[in-house]
């Protein structure tokens, strides 16, 4: 059952449209992520759900009720801010007790719940400290504990990890997922970090220029991007100019980067002769060898090593095709020794399985 439904939300500011007709349905218990670059409308959308901005048109249904006209304090949901927004004049304990005090709980009930909450995030030793006496990671935990203390229906998180260093961020990924599973509260998470979005979410909405470009599980978003933008924004991707050069029943042949041809399926006859677009394929989906791979449907062609980047677990090669097109290829360093390393200017065979890529037509 959908806990939060957004229906055709539009928000215009003086000089630009921040959100341009977004409709989303978020399920109870989901870890839902709004992913996009700054200015894509994700934070504005979050602020409208929280009640800090009001949409020009559209509906925001929480548990089936339109909350669009409720002030922030009347909405049964909380926000974790990018800056954490801990109250500097209150101790950890008072910060966490704040929502319960506002809801006029009685003192003993507040104490009991606050203690429970403090121990659930392992902050017992820091309960009487002030926010400025805590580390970034501890502040983060206090902010989340404070937002979950009265068991809201929804928790909105606005780039909550962006102020932490890389190691701590990875550690917090694990903690966030644990907290979400333990509390059972639906998380709506905003980030511009695609790896964070892929690692944490049950579903991701990729936003750009105020609209949702693609909605799906991390796996769908990564391996089956539907638009040039999504393919380019998420992970590394080769985006090669492609054009339909032959058309047959249920299949079309693409001429890619004026260099090689691939035959792909044409369900519902979406593509016609002459249709132009991009062939998107992830670097790790491309194989490279000294010899061509002779298999059905696999395209082999010669390329020259232009350079490579050693990443430890893999090596990212840049191959140059005859007409100057560059193709990136991520080879695992786990492969048999003799095939592992190519040097600059080596001539190799690249093989591409058409099923591993996507033909994107704008």
């Amino acid at each position: 059952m959908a806990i939060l439904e957004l229906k055709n939300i539009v928000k215009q500011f003086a000089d630009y449209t921040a959100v341009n007709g977004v409709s989303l349905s978020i399920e109870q218990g989901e870890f839902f992520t709004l992913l996009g670059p700054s200015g894509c409308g994700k934070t504005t959308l979050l602020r409208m759900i929280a009640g800090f901005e009001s949409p020009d048109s559209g509906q925001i249904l929480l548990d089936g009720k339109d909350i669009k006209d409720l002030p922030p304090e009347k909405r049964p949901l909380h926000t974790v801010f990018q800056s954490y927004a801990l109250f500097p004049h209150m101790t950890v304990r008072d910060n966490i007790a704040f929502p319960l005090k506002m809801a006029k709980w009685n003192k003993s009930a507040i104490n009991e719940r606050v203690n429970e909450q403090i121990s659930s995030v392992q902050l017992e030793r820091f309960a009487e400290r002030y926010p400025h006496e805590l580390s970034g990671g501890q502040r983060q935990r206090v902010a989340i504990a404070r937002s979950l203390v009265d068991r809201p229906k929804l928790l909105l998180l606005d780039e909550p990890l962006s102020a932490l260093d890389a190691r701590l961020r990875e550690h917090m990924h694990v903690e966030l997922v644990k907290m979400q599973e333990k509390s059972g509260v639906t998380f709506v998470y905003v980030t511009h970090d695609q790896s964070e979005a892929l690692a944490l979410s049950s579903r991701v909405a990729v936003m750009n220029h105020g609209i949702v470009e693609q909605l799906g599980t991390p796996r769908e978003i990564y391996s089956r991007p539907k638009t040039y933008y999504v393919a380019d924004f998420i992970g590394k991707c080769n985006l090669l100019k492609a054009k339909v050069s032959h058309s047959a029943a249920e299949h079309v042949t693409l001429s890619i980067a004026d260099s090689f041809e691939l035959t792909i399926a044409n369900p519902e006859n979406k593509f016609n002769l002459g249709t132009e677009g991009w062939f998107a394929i992830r670097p790790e989906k491309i194989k490279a060898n000294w010899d061509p791979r002779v298999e059905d449907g696999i395209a082999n062609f010669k390329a020259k090593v232009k350079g490579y980047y050693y990443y430890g677990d893999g090596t990212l090669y840049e191959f140059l095709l005859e007409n100057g097109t560059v193709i990136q290829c991520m080879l695992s360093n786990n492969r048999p020794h003799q095939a592992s390393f190519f040097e600059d200017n080596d001539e190799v065979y690249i093989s591409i399985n058409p099923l591993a890529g996507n033909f994107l037509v704008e």
Partner: protein
Amino acid sequence: MHGSKLSKSLIFSGTLVYLFLYLPLLILIVYSFNDSRVNVGWVGFTLKWYKVLFADKQLISAAINSVIIALIASTVSVILGTLAGVALHKHKVPLLSTLVMIPVAAPELLVGVSLLLFFLLINFSLGMISITLAHIAFCLSFVTIAVKTRMHGMDDSLMDAARDLGASPARAFFSVLIPTILPGIIAGWLMAFTLSLDDFVITFFTAGVGSSTLPLAIYSMLKMGVTPEVNAASTVIIICTLILTSIATKISPQLFK
């Protein structure tokens, strides 16, 4: 080696600066205990100038006037200035922010004369009330600036967080905003209090006849030469200021971080 050399020169220049600042005050304090009618040469220790001071009914009533005016002016200007500072931070109106600065930057003489003309124009009788109003007018700017500066260093999402966690706008204002900017408010209040307490120029123009404040009273005493009684009065003021400042920093040390 280099480090200790640097710190020696630092100590030296620091001492010079503090001597420059405090030596005149120190001399003034010392001479308030001098058993002589004139401020030349040390004769002997006495407390008689303090006795004279506290027996001087005119001076005492002027001091009481000063404190009353300073209390009212600083408190009223803190309330108005806090509201103005918060509003100016929230709604960035460029012209208004500049206008708030003007009374701080403008020569006191100008402010004094213009206030006098204004009071005469609206037929407002000069006295304690006109002095207090004049003090509120110039203190307001200082408080507004102190609060605005504090707001500038504040995380804007604090107020959003308070609302988000269930506080009404009024509740968020009193239980989150005010405590967060309290150091700015206290600083503004102290600044307003001391400015009002020792203001001479603006008070001179808006006092009219009859009502007097401590600075005006001391000034009129100076017409008969600098007597040790003036020294004693000044010493009392210095000590009051010292106590006030240390109280302010002690009130809540963690708030001043």
